[in-house]
């Protein structure tokens, strides 16, 4: 298996908090160190070596921070969540038994930290779904517009980034987990404790919302 990809392990008995969640298929750049080097640092960190833990932080901080940032879309919150994820790691690192890649385990731990925080803030997919349900006249079937308003093949990166940042929290969460992090709907449903159908529906609505935002952005650009 290529070093740059996280494998798909069986459910981990030592996984933190939420189980059943298998890791993403895509992305997965696990950089800058060899498995052997990682193992050695890991073993020392598990034994309580603070320098080794600092090294682990240094190796994984970008990936975990980037994950948090994508999921919440807010720098201050992403910093807090990254901090919390590494504190959780510090508390639980001795329980890691190596049944999966360490980076996979840590990724899952961080996702769980973010989800717990979002739940504390009262994110409810069902209520969010109801709240976001468009009025009949705004439903996609009637809001298509003419074909010439369809997005062109190339999407402006900044506009897309902005549109994702502006998504309602629940939509962004599922969009990031599925389209960016590569989780499958059954995995997302397990993590978010919702139905697979709900996960599919939320993702679809997130994409529709993005399309609408991008089209409006394109139209505004055209008027200038």
């Amino acid at each position, binding site marked *: 298996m290529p070093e740059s990809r996280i494998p798909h392990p069986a459910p981990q008995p030592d996984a933190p908090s939420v189980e059943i969640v298998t890791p993403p298929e895509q992305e997965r750049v696990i950089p800058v160190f060899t498995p052997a080097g990682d193992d050695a640092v890991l073993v020392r960190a598990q034994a309580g070596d603070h320098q080794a833990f600092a090294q682990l932080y240094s190796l994984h901080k970008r990936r975990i921070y980037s994950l948090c940032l994508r999921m919440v879309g807010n720098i201050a919150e992403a910093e807090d969540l990254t*901090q919390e994820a590494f504190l959780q790691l510090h*508390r639980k690192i001795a329980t890691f038994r190596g049944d999966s890649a360490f980076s996979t385990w840590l990724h899952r731990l961080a996702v769980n930290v973010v989800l717990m925080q979002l739940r504390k803030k009262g994110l409810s997919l069902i209520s969010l779904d109801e709240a976001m349900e468009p009025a009949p006249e705004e439903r996609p079937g009637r809001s298509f517009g003419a074909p010439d308003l369809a997005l062109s093949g190339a*999407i402006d990166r900044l506009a897309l980034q902005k549109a994702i940042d502006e998504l309602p929290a629940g939509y962004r969460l599922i969009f990031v987990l599925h389209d960016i992090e590569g989780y499958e709907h059954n995995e997302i449903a397990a993590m978010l404790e919702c139905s697979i159908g709900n996960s599919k529906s939320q993702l679809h609505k997130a994409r529709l919302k993005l399309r609408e935002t991008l089209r409006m952005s394109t139209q505004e650009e055209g008027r200038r």
Partner: protein
Amino acid sequence: MTDDTKEMSCAAFQAQLPELIGAGVNVSAHPHVQSCELCRALLSDLETIAEAARQLFPIEEPPDKLWDQIELRIRTEKGTEG
């Protein structure tokens, strides 16, 4: 898919769309998409957005102060345990 799908309304097709996409079906081959320019444009846009998003996010660097804060919290927790 039956011949009825050719006559399917956009609303009916779109109601099925999350399930079709989520199931990994080749939606572009759906008879309704073949015959409906609007739904074809919609599908194309959704695919473009998903593809663009996959390539969008760079790996970000957290601020240096974050490690200082983590270390402080670790020391505090150790102190509490002790």
